[in-house]
């Protein structure tokens, strides 16, 4: 009798270990399978939120793209100076009235430039960003299995004369609609931020092509004391 009891207890304890072992596995491993969902509550509701899918439509998008040829209210973009960088059928040479060029705008422009432009153009704008470096690296490889059909045109340096002499409106248009191999960024960067980037690029160009006389006299005196690089200890 006692042997039977010991047997049963052993079996029960052993079986009881199995769920614990499964739980321990679930806690420590990653899984490709959809997560286990014990209590449904109303976690998944039959409604559509941003970027959800909807099988009712052929493309599966719950968010419907605007019908071609329509304009949403308030989006007519009548002001060609602000929206296109064009004044009287020529590239604008001034900033539109909606854009106030001040330090805040330049700071905003710098932050946005560093997000959207530096991957290719580099932080100083010489066309030597990390994506450019990586693309060159790939192309240097002679193995077609590595190159995988890549092509690459080095991004323009923003300090080339051809570009630094461009009117503001043309710069704005390049960011908006792209040029040559560069895609347009109208969808990624809102209108006001594109103008901020234009302002920052103008400042960046000036910074790389400045001479001593561009500085106010009182700051010129301080120049020799400014250290550009931190000296090693």
């Amino acid at each position, binding site marked *: 009798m006692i042997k039977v009891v010991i047997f049963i207890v052993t079996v029960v304890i052993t079986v009881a270990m199995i769920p614990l072992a499964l739980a321990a596995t679930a*806690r420590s491993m990653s*899984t490709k399978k959809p997560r286990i969902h014990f209590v449904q509550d109303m976690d998944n509701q039959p409604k559509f939120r*941003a970027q959800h899918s909807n099988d009712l439509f052929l493309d599966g998008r719950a968010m419907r793209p605007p019908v071609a040829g329509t304009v949403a209210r308030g989006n007519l973009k009548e002001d060609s100076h602000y929206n296109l960088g064009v004044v009287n059928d020529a590239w604008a040479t001034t900033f539109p009235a909606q854009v106030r060029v001040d330090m805040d705008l330049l700071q905003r422009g710098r932050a946005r430039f560093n*997000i959207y432009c530096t991957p290719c153009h580099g932080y100083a704008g010489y066309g030597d960003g990390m994506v450019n470096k990586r693309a060159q690296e*790939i192309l240097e490889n002679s193995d077609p299995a590595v190159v995988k059909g890549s092509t*690459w045109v080095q991004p323009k340096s923003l300090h080339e004369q051809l570009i630094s002499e461009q009117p503001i409106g043309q710069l704005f248009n390049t960011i908006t609609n792209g040029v040559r*191999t560069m895609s347009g960024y109208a969808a990624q960067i809102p209108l006001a931020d594109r103008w901020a980037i234009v302002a920052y690029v103008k400042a960046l160009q000036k910074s790389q092509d400045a001479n001593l006389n561009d500085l106010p006299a009182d700051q010129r005196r301080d120049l020799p004391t400014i250290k550009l690089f931190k000296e090693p200890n």
Partner: protein
Amino acid sequence: MPSVGILGAAAPVYAFFLVSYGFSPIATDVGYQPEQPVPYSHRIHVGQLGIDCRYCHNTVEVAAKAAIPPTQTCMNCHTQVYKESINLTALFDSYATGMPVKWKRVHDLPDYAYFNHSAHVNRGVSCVECHGRVDKMEEIKQEKPLNMGWCLDCHRKPQGRVRDPLTVTDLGWRFEDDSAAKAQFKTFEDYSEFWLKHNNISPSQDCSTCHR
């Protein structure tokens, strides 16, 4: 039959332990790493190339949702780079047909929770707090439990989690490595306290903050 008695007494303890251990979101939710239609590597794009989170997830500062980028964003570079890669087939198909790439959602809150990305990143809660070191992930994996108790942990004690909003997308940022911050503040908690005051942040714990 004392052994049966012991087993009977142990059973509720066992059940309690099993449920709290095995049914916890750490067991059921953390570690989800689905296979995506395109094996996009955050480790290469973010970690190596240093592309800012906002280059692709560009709505994160102004909207509730940090949008999954449209195919066009990928094609900014991939009209040139890796034009013949079989890994990118789904991407090229999408570009040619206009059909979206069917990315699988990894971080998914219940539909009755209204999380707002912009409210967090603009106040200095870094992406890394909820998504982990994405810049080191080959494929995206859920690292945090994302359950309500876990949200509230931070809402009750944001010190040591909130930082300068300008550095939120710097996933590798550590207080210990930030010499400017360390010169002024003793601990990350003090540093957070400064930003909480500076930006006038007091995280709400009202039900209606997230459930509406």
